[in-house]
């Protein structure tokens, strides 16, 4: 039977690739020779301080970096064939997250930040008349964003406002720059009583900011009681404001 010119002895070395974070701790792992090398296998390294082999044991991890271990099957004094082990220590570091593209947050008027980070759109509370009335107030929370890529704005909104014409009094509106985008007041409701609040349950809102990719925009939450009547409630709350990638739901 003629010799097959393509036949050759299989051999290999394991592991082939080591990737580990850098923790300053040297580690050792025995290299396994599989199959039948053409001769005695010797090892060299591109950088012994990163990875080295001695007595068939690979040592690495004391220093960050990358190195290649070359395993050579030596036959009659020459390298008959080679195999390789790639070692990477601390080269796959997690990149720190990019800073959020929020340039500034500016509250003004009757807006305050609560200790838990929730923004409170509040009433004037220094005095009330017998009908719970005092003065009209307004406020604004302006968030300027430099949008390097596609984001969605996510936030929770809830509140407790007057129930008399709650659909168009004690309003909270959202603007992109000076352009109106959304109102959060409830639909027209049957008024329960002037001294009973209209409670708006907490809900999560999503606003797609695709139209501002590569631009800056000021997202403005605008609060306005519109009159001085029935001011003895909690007002509006906006919390958990964050920018998310567009695929997050």
């Amino acid at each position, binding site marked *: 039977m003629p010799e*097959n*010119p*393509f036949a*050759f002895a299989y051999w290999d070395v394991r592991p082939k690739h080591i990737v580990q974070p*850098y923790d*300053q701790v040297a580690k050792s792992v025995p290299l396994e020779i599989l199959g039948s090398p053409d001769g005695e296998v010797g090892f060299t390294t*591109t*950088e012994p301080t*990163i990875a080295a082999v001695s007595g068939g044991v690979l040592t690495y991890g004391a*220093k*960050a*970096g*990358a*190195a*290649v271990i*070359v395993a*050579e099957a030596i036959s009659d004094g020459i*390298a008959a*064939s*080679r*195999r*390789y082990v*790639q070692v*990477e220590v*601390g*080269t796959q*570091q997690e990149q720190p997250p990019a800073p959020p593209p929020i340039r500034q947050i500016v509250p003004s008027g009757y807006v305050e930040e609560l200790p838990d980070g929730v923004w409170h759109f509040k009433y004037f509370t220094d005095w009330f008349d017998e009908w719970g009335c005092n003065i009209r107030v307004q406020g604004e929370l302006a968030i300027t964003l430099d949008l390097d890529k596609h984001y969605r704005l996510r936030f929770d909104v809830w509140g407790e406002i007057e129930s008399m014409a709650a659909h168009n009094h004690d309003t909270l509106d959202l603007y992109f720059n000076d352009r109106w985008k959304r109102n959060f007041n409830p639909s027209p409701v049957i008024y329960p009583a002037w001294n009973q609040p209209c409670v708006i349950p907490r809900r999560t809102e999503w606003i797609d900011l695709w139209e501002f990719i590569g631009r800056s925009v000021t997202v403005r939450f605008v609060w306005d009681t519109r009159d001085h009547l029935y001011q003895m409630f909690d007002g509006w709350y906006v919390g958990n404001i964050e920018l998310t990638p567009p695929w997050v739901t």
Partner: protein
Amino acid sequence: MSVDQVQYWDVFPKTIKVSHGSLNMSVPLSVRGNPRGNVCFDVSNMAIATVSETGIVSLGYNVGATIIAAYDSEDRTSVRYVQVEVISVAAAVADA
């Protein structure tokens, strides 16, 4: 298909990644299989790595990446590739 029509050959390793800074760093390439002629090498960016006629890759002087193309001298359309990368591990990591 007869055995004679099979012209498998390849060059190893397929990727080389080393740290920047060490001098005289070299990795001998290994040709396996049966190319028609000799295997010759070409490097896309010799500032990152060079290859001798015998397939010894010298690298490590500059940070960057390059591709080594290995040609069959009898068939220049028969090419294999080796990705080479010389990395700079952040000093904060290396010195931590």
